[in-house]
């Protein structure tokens, strides 16, 4: 079994840390069971916190608020956008711009240092304006990548919001794109009368459908696509989730051979993007309330029952392979390797967003009770 070297990414400028969406922090973290501070917002929080190089934390909420806090937790600026925010924002690599999308279908480029708008763009939609997917910044061509319930993925010029490319996002575009180090994008989509497709978009905009999981009893309109592909480039594998009928499948895809290496089924759907461990194992949080650790060769390492009926959000992990996840009962769990896990804190209301880790190793857990708990 190969060992993954955690990426050099210490600054999580996007959901899951970097464009691989792996959620693996590059060193061990040591946190106390009680939060050292809380960050207050106006609305419930259903998006991960992201950070700039200086440790500034950016928090978006369901009431349309965007807030910046210094590493000590003091507010720097806050603004109010046109509608709620469910899509994880992203920072440009040089920290200059923060990109945010709203339920009304607006994309904003904000000056990250003061929150002032640089540009905005309305994503066209006849029926459903919602932007729900995690944003991605592609440094290779200076674009941001997102989709909306208008049914399209967009690659927008980060400088001015002009559309550089667009492609079909399918029926239920909850999930954003992931990208490799060369800037190639990977995404999933549910396609009418077909099923779920795993797609690669080259840096030149060329689209290739790599794999299709055919629909079976349930039509594609009922197949939720909300987990993003997770890239393990060191191992040459991409993991992605397909929800078919009432089950879900974790698929391991060989980048080199362009074929499925193995797949494993789970009893319920999976909403949450998987998380990688340093040993190459993958962590799955399912709608049965369980956290599963599956090895690179498809062996079950553990199953941890959180005690909640379902899990809506993803986990993160550290260099010691400790896993951190929040559940809809508001409990935050730490799971050590070998299934030794327990909740160590309970927020007042549900947790429905992926946690984040800042460069100092502090864990930021957003809650729908309008607080981000910092451990």
């Amino acid at each position, binding site marked *: 079994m190969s060992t993954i070297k955690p990426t050099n990414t210490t600054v999580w400028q996007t959901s899951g840390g970097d464009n691989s969406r792996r959620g693996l922090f590059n060193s061990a973290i040591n946190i106390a069971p009680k939060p050292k501070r809380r960050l207050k917002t106006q609305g419930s929080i259903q998006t991960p916190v992201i950070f700039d190089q200086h440790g500034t934390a950016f928090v978006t909420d*369901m*009431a349309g608020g965007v807030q910046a806090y210094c590493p000590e937790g003091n507010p720097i600026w806050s603004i109010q956008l046109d509608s709620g925010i469910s899509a994880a924002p992203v920072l440009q690599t040089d920290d200059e711009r923060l990109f945010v999308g709203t339920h009304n279908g607006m994309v904003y480029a904000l000056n990250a240092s003061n929150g002032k708008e640089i540009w905005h763009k309305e994503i066209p939609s006849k029926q*459903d304006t919602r932007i729900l997917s995690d944003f991605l910044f592609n440094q290779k061509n200076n674009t941001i990548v997102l989709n909306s319930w208008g049914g399209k993925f967009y690659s927008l010029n980060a400088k001015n919001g002009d559309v550089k490319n667009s492609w079909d996002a399918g029926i239920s575009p909850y999930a954003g794109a992931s990208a490799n180090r060369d800037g190639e994008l990977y995404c999933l989509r549910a396609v009418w009368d077909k099923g779920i497709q795993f797609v690669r978009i080259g840096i030149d905009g060329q689209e290739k459908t790599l794999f299709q999981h055919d629909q079976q009893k349930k039509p594609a309109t009922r197949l939720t696509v909300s987990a993003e592909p997770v890239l393990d480039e060191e191992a040459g594998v991409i993991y992605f989730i397909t929800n078919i009928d009432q089950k879900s499948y974790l698929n391991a895809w060989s980048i080199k051979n362009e074929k499925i290496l193995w797949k494993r089924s789970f009893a319920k759907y999976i909403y949450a993007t998987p998380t990688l461990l340093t040993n190459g194992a993958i962590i799955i949080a399912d709608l049965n309330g369980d956290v599963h650790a599956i090895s690179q060769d498809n062996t079950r390492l553990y199953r941890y029952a959180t005690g909640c009926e379902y899990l809506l959000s993803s986990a993160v992990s550290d260099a010691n392979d400790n896993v951190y996840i929040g559940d809809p009962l508001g409990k935050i769990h730490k799971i050590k390797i070998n299934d030794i896990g327990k909740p160590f804190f309970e927020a007042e209301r549900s947790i429905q967003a992926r946690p984040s880790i800042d460069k100092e190793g502090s864990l930021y857990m957003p809650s729908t009770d309008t607080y981000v708990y910092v451990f």
Partner: protein
Amino acid sequence: MRNNQNILHNAPKCPGGILSRRNFLKYTAAAALITPTVASVDYANADNEPKNIPRAPVSIGLCKRYDFADVRRALAVMLDDLGDVRKLVKNKFVTIKVNLVNTSEEDVAGIPVYLSVTTHPIVALALGSLLVDYGAKRITFCDQLPFRLPDKEAFLGYGFDLEQFNQAMDGKARFENTRNLGQHKDYALIKVPNGGEIASAWEVNQTYAKTDVLISIGKLKSHVSGGVTMGMKNLIGVPPSSLYGDDIKNEPDENAIGYRGRTVHTCESKPLTSVDTYTGKWVIQDHGYNVPRLIVDLNAAFPIDLTVVDGISTIQTAEGWWNGSMVSVTRPGLLIAGRNAVCTDSVSAAIMGFDPNAADRTHPFANGTNYLAMSRRKGMGENRINNIEIVGVNIEKARFEYQPTYQRVNS
């Protein structure tokens, strides 16, 4: 009992009250004479604002899980905050309309309907046991379910176990599937005060008429046609499939179990009631026009004495599994209760991050009419949040924003 068809003068706690067919025909003939007045009412006109709009406090409680003790404890505090629920139910026959929608055989992403779409049985059980403690004589839990099974079995798929209910309620629980006559000999014909918007009367299972107290337990959800759905919208389940179902042909059918899409959504068909009860003032296939008006007509005919909203675990964006993958499971961890259904549902909408007094065809009423505002203009209750007293958890703390619903093309 709230009424007996032989004692019509006692009936109108329901403002319309139950009518005999003979009286109904007399009424409809009289109504025809005054139709121009009724039809000319413009509810979008602020000048028609009633002077005394009913209002009642709304109580909010936080409750994370469907644990019987937790839910019961939370509801007990909330009902005491409302002040008069004990008196309301003491020595009374109570009907609780639960929201079980149209089948128990579906799910949302594998999550069972009671965690996503329908009233959770624990909320109904906890409320029922409290009401028994308060002195209720008998409590009938009802909805129309698309199953021809005996009532006890039909409810079981939704997690409603009659034995369990009777253990917690001293044997005072009953389940009734109101899809047809059920155990009754005839239907109740209930008129809508002032003629109604679309329905001038409703012909329904007697469970909704032969009761002292009507309670609605709804689920906290968005609704594509109605905008939001809680206690008031729950009454859309009252008209029986046997008279209103899509699967009936030329005459009423006691075996019908069909959805009521053509009669209470698209209005492409009239129900096969014993007398003509539809006014003709609908817009065929415009769900957003018809459904809100039918909600108002039902709530005018069947005033809800207590509304309880199950907002512990639910879905956002739309109302059911049939909306496909556009809905997602979410967990507000809330219970909401109030004596006035308009007030209660308006507070519920505000908790979801919506303006309960929003203009028609704007969010959350993106596809049609704001039935909460229409209800206020009809004098049924207050929907403007600043005019409603809130007890228990304050609304800022309770707030849990939902993702908005989609807009139908041409809405």
